């Protein structure tokens, strides 16, 4: 996912990645990964240190300066928890749809593509 800045705030990092930087570490669901003490300075995320600890690929495009991070891989598997992640996407009419609006219902989420 693209980051708005190479020095994101804690909130910007959480919005982009789903990982909240708490005193006990980077947390998602019931999983927390300890971070070095200098991982956050004055609310700004030390991106290289945090990405390294979470196993996130970090890429900065040399020409544009744009920065993107890949998903975390602390356990070597795609999922670190079975708690379904937050997901909001538009439908074909442009209306936002939140996956968690279906709580209380079984969901089969099907990915497809026209290619």
């Amino acid at each position, binding site marked *: 996912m693209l980051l708005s800045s190479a020095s994101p705030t804690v909130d910007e990092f959480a919005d982009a990645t789903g990982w909240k930087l708490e005193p006990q570490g980077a947390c998602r669901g019931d999983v927390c990964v300890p971070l070095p003490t200098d991982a956050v300075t004055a609310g700004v995320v030390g991106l290289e240190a945090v990405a390294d600890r979470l196993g*996130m690929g970090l890429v900065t495009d040399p020409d544009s300066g744009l920065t993107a991070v890949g998903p975390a891989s602390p356990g070597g598997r795609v999922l670190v928890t079975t708690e379904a992640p937050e997901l909001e996407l538009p439908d074909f009419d442009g209306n936002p749809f939140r996956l968690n609006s279906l709580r209380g219902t079984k*969901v089969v*989420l099907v990915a497809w593509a026209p290619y």
Partner: protein
Amino acid sequence: MHPQGVEIVTVCLETLGVEPGRPYVDAAQPEHPTLVDTGHVVDELFGIVNIPNAVWIDEAGTIVRPAEPAWPAPRKPGGGPLSEEAPQRIRDIMAEASKIKAWSAEIYADAVRDWAANGSASRHVLPADEVIARSGSRDSFTSKAAAHFSLAEHFERSGDHAKAVEHFRDAHRLAPDNWTYKRQAWSIEGDLDNPLARFWQGPAEGRDWPYESDWLTDIRAKGAEQYYRNVEL
């Protein structure tokens, strides 16, 4: 499945936006939520590396089956022999496609019905450790591939196709088994007004091909029967 308490939610993975998928949605007239994912967010969140794939999520928001090949019905053979006028590459693609094994297609829909009827007691519901174990491997290489893919999509949507190709190539190099990354990138080369263009996914006469491989070369190298992984339901 709605009356049985299961909601189908489809997600179209398409960097180019809504329009390429619209004809399919218009033809199907679905009654379930039909979403578009122009950023391939679902790929990252659930580890989808080919389509079609599905994830089961129970009433409490717990994933009970991770991303895996999924089918609405047994896969039918192709639509018969192509006409003599069909380009050779399309004929070759169809020949390889006919060998693709949809491992669980015969029983997948029945498995969903079983889950609808029996809930957490269904034999198709996996324990948490099994869900995580089956969710696919992820390491710093595949994560970095995802970062490159995000940059590629950004540049493609910004109109800088050459720059997008650079990052698509990096994503392919770092995650060579991710068919979604490849199919998305390969499908946007060439004349998109040509109805075959999205499925051509390879070199064509008179046009440079900017990738190391292409759909036909890759599937021949990997073997069509391995295109979708075998899933134990």
